[in-house]
């Protein structure tokens, strides 16, 4: 059974923008799926529909065969817990420490009141330290996140999502605000989660070179439509021009 299945998914924003048009997509467990497309093609919208941060206008979302398109409340929160997410802008709580930020990843499994009083159980703190070790930041646990570099902040965000024990990790242009070397270090952590822990990764990317290095499968969006599905090496020059437009030139990322 497929892990995630999108059926004829459409999203029309209140301002009339048709951001997703009849998107059909199946994601298998253990894949490293990369989504490419021009700016505005609907990549972020697609990702946010999967964990229902955005409500699709029509169509269906199936998770392990279960329809999750319209679940609400507690059921929706339980579902979101299985899906970690990281962002281009990291979206950490600035002014707070690395450790607290990592702990917020576990909010979905914590009772509301104690968590708001920031009474986190000791084993959870230990687990947070372990996740920080995975991303190589254990010595920074007591530092305010706004004092970290971009690459470090993204690794904190990865550690935060690991606290959910996610089955899937959604990454919305995770390296778009990072320099090439840092980009590779962050991408390597994602790859490691994919190969070592068998985590399914769905990642929006801009650079084709990164796609070829890290992706196991690629889909391309153009004006809200899925126009390509295949292996990274199957993106020929023709497809490239089709996806990015005639004038586009491929740039390498070191």
């Amino acid at each position, binding site marked *: 059974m497929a892990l995630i299945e999108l059926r004829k998914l459409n999203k029309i924003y209140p301002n009339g923008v048709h951001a997703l048009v009849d998107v059909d997509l199946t994601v298998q467990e253990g894949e490293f799926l990369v989504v490419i497309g021009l700016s505005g093609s609907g990549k972020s919208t697609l990702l946010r529909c999967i964990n229902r941060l955005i409500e699709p206008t029509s169509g269906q979302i199936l998770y392990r065969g279960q329809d999750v398109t319209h679940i609400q409340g507690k059921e929706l929160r*339980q579902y979101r817990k299985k899906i970690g*997410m990281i962002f281009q802008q990291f979206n950490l709580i600035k*002014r707070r420490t690395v450790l607290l930020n990592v702990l917020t*990843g576990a*909010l*979905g499994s914590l009772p509301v009141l104690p968590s708001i009083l920031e009474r986190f159980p000791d084993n959870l703190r230990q687990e947070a330290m372990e996740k920080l070790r995975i991303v190589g930041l254990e010595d920074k646990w007591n530092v305010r996140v706004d004092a970290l570099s971009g690459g470090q902040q993204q690794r904190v965000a990865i550690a935060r999502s690991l606290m959910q024990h996610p089955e899937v990790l959604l990454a919305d242009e995770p390296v778009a605000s990072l320099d090439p070397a840092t980009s590779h270090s962050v991408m390597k952590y994602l790859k490691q989660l994919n190969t070592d822990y068998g985590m399914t990764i769905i990642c929006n990317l801009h650079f084709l070179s990164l796609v070829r290095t890290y992706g196991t499968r690629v889909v391309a969006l153009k004006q809200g439509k899925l126009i390509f599905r295949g292996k990274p090496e199957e993106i020929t020059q023709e497809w490239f021009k089709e996806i990015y437009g005639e004038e586009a030139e491929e740039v390498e990322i070191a």
Partner: protein
Amino acid sequence: MGTETKSQTTTAQKFQALILDIFFGIYFVVTLHRVFYYQVLLSLRKLPPVTVEIVLLYIGIGTILGLALFFLNASPGKLIFRQLPDVPWKKAVAEHFLWIIGVLTIATGWVVTRVSILDFFSQEGLAGAKRIFSALLSPEWSILPQALLAIVETIYLALMATLFALPVAFILSFFTARNLMRQSPITLGIYTVLRVLVNFTRSIEPLIWAIIFTVWVGIGPFAGTLALMVHTIASLTKLYSEQIENVDPGPIEAIEATGAHPMQVIWFAVVPQIVLPFLSFTIYRWDINVRMATIIGLVGGGGIGTLLMQYQGLAQWHEVGLLVLIIAIVVWIMDYLSARIREALV
């Protein structure tokens, strides 16, 4: 440019221009007749009474004038909305009409507020000014203890009003923040009702609230506290909720994606972004409240204003002088402190 803007003109804009023209026409007729003719030309001190007939006449003539300007395209309304075609003489008429309206408005303002250079520089007037200023400059120090007690009452009045208002405004502000309330029609309904209520409450000045509360709970500091509190709730709610509307949505998405409860989302993604601005607004508001509290006594709201009214009523200007001095010093200190604290916060 003329043709380009004309093609963009919508019916709604045309209608606005028409309304404006009719308004200008009536305004012109009324001010011309009642102010310029009676008061400037004839220098009448007492105006003839306004009858229904004359009002209808004003409206009639004014409307005809407005319609004429509008349909002749010499329309000041169209000029303001940039819909006027490029015909020099029509433009000139519209422009000059607006100039005349402007001059008439200033003349009306002059007459209505009874500006009189004569009164300002009259013998009697100057003598009065000298008396009050010299009294203010030689304050009566014997009432200092009484005055200090009153100013302390005033400061506490402002403090209590601010403190009581704070938690209420804090909670209300989440319900009046559009970005948090647009999820469902129900929350949007609550948002709209609360917003209207808050804006209405805020538009009534604290002085008027004080009058209401002196009738409700009787004259004294409690009425003043309530008045300031009500107004503070409304204005802090507005300031707070605007701050909430401006938070970065990124962390909200990130915390939502962990499967967190909405309360947890607000606590971890919204609150950290707003505490400092909230503190800053609150201190600023306390500063304003001290200022307001000094005058809220004028209508029986307690504090130093009440004392001021008593001495002013008895024409004891030296005592008034001391009170004014103390108010000035306290307001200045509050102003300075609040500015320094707010600087340190951000």
